[in-house]
């Protein structure tokens, strides 16, 4: 895809552009090549502001959160949102933490996806690519295997330990060079090793019940989450997001390739560390909270780009917001969808993601021809 963008398309338009250049640009140039006083008049303001989009998304998230808190097996109308109402317990202990997690996890995944795509300069990069999510999943799986999930704190904690393990190995394998290819390969290797260990854990599960518990958990969901989950994962997600926010300008510079970015003063090793830490914390905490929820990180930046342009830094915040919105809405829908048992959120997202990419592929093919 980046190959497509790299190609320049010589069109009839190019010749037309050349004409205007000769008349307008050249004239100005030959008269004075040092600062031109009325330069401001000649160059229109360069940037589309993503501010409007961000505000719209924020507003939509607030509305979606309201619906998320209200809906479920029991519909709780606005009028009942008071401490006196017995249903307040449902809101305070189940719905609000679940909604907060949906927003946080969605934002973390959207933001991580945008950062990963910007860093690897590949629109098909996914936060799962570093092997961090599968390592976090392995951690969680092990805690289920050993039956540690009796305590609400242990499973997310194990997942976070798994994620940090992956970050550490990534840093050891690829940290020195700052090379992108080494980094992506190291990530893929970690993902494949931890993935196989997860399946090993399932096949060695002491009882069929544990095996099914693991499989169900891996499908990803926000069912029955509590404030404990929020307490563990939210700080990690916030810190991760803050770290990713620091990478925006370097990601922009990377648009011009590694050599150009380095010549502009970008420290690629520092950038790599920030990306590993930021994505690792965000994705690790997301998996700890919700299991593996695919496609959000992959899809969201694609939905944002047509609206705010391709500049990596410009899509970070909108991607986080859209990710939060997408997950909040989806999590509400899986709750109220008429089915015997609740549709798992991770499954729902994959069902959305597959067709999304099919459509994208068809569009890309049309561009290529």
């Amino acid at each position, binding site marked *: 895809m980046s190959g497509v*963008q790299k190609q320049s398309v010589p069109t009839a338009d190019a010749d037309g552009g050349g004409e205007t250049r000769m008349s307008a640009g050249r004239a100005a140039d030959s008269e004075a090549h040092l600062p031109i006083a009325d330069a401001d008049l000649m*160059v229109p303001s360069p940037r589309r502001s993503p501010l409007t989009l961000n505000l719209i998304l924020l507003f939509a998230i607030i509305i979606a959160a309201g619906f998320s808190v209200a809906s479920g097996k029991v519909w709780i109308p606005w009028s009942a949102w008071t401490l006196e109402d017995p249903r307040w317990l449902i809101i305070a202990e189940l719905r609000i933490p679940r909604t907060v997690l949906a927003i946080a996890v969605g934002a973390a995944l959207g933001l991580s996806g945008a950062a990963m795509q910007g860093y690897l300069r590949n629109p098909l990069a996914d936060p799962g690519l570093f092997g961090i999510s599968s390592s976090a999943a392995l951690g969680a799986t092990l805690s289920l295997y050993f039956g540690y999930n009796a305590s609400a704190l242990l499973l997310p904690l194990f997942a976070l330990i798994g994620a940090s393990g992956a970050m550490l190995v990534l840093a050891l394998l690829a940290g020195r060079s700052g090379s992108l290819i080494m980094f992506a390969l190291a990530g893929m290797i970690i993902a494949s090793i931890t993935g196989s260990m997860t399946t090993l854990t399932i096949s060695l599960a002491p009882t069929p019940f544990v095996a099914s518990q693991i499989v169900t958990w891996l499908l990803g969901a926000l069912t029955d989450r509590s404030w404990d989950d929020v307490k563990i994962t939210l700080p990690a997600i916030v810190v991760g997001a803050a770290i990713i926010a620091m990478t925006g300008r370097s990601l922009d510079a990377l648009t011009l390739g590694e050599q150009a970015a380095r010549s502009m003063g970008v420290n690629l090793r520092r950038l790599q560390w920030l990306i590993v830490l930021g994505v690792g914390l965000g994705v690790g905490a997301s998996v700890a909270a919700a299991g593996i929820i695919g496609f959000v990180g992959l899809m969201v930046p694609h939905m944002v780009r047509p609206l705010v342009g391709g500049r990596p830094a410009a899509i970070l915040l909108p991607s986080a917001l859209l990710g939060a919105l997408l997950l909040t809405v989806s999590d509400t829908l899986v709750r109220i969808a008429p089915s015997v048992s609740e549709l798992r959120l991770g499954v729902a997202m994959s069902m959305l993601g597959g067709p999304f990419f099919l459509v994208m592929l068809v569009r890309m093919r049309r561009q290529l021809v």
Partner: protein
Amino acid sequence: MSGLSVEALHVTLRGRQVLVDVDLCFTRGKVTALLGPNGAGKSTLLGCLAGLRKPDSGCVRLNGAEVLSLDPMARARRIGLLPQNGEVHWDVDVAALVVLGRFPHRGRWGETEADRRAVQNAMIAADVAQFANRSVARLSGGERSRVLLARVLAGEPEWLLADEPLASLDPAHQLDVLMQLREVAARGAGVIVVVHDLVHAMRVADEVVLLREGRVVAQGARDEVLAADRLRATFGIDVYIGQAADGERFIVPLRRSV
């Protein structure tokens, strides 16, 4: 010790000596062409000059200070590099791309008046102001390379290093870029440009450095270096050097010398 200079530079890549005992001195306000056959070490030399490659021994100095010891941002403010295959990975607006040239200058809190002015001047100098709001994907090859040149100019570097900026351009656009490089030098910056084409080197350069197998064959004023015997020694070709009606010298490669 002012200017950009190279002292006893040695670079070995995978056991092959790419640069051998290179000593050079560049001056600001001039266009210096780096010429040599494929594999002569031109791009490696440019990478060392830009402070992106660590030589095995020797050093590159900018006004007496070793380039590698400079803070990367400070270095980037003074040395701008236009890489060979102008990569642009995302479809961004021309203006947004040119603004990237201000990267080493910009503080944490957004752009200043100086940034805006530099970007505008760069867009005018590289002649891309008229499509500031067009997306990069919708540019022709020539327009695109001018946009990338504008990006480097926006950084207002004291030294502009360009790696084959003329590749894949038609003759008209090649002339445009050559003239733009000349203008940059006229404004006081030092321009060091890797070119493959002797004709272009003759057109654009004040000074020429001839490289062959990692060694400097000749360096000096264009008319002294671009002489038939030197070019035969470097490229193994015979050339014809003549004078055009306007008094400019020109060069025509004729054949491989026997």
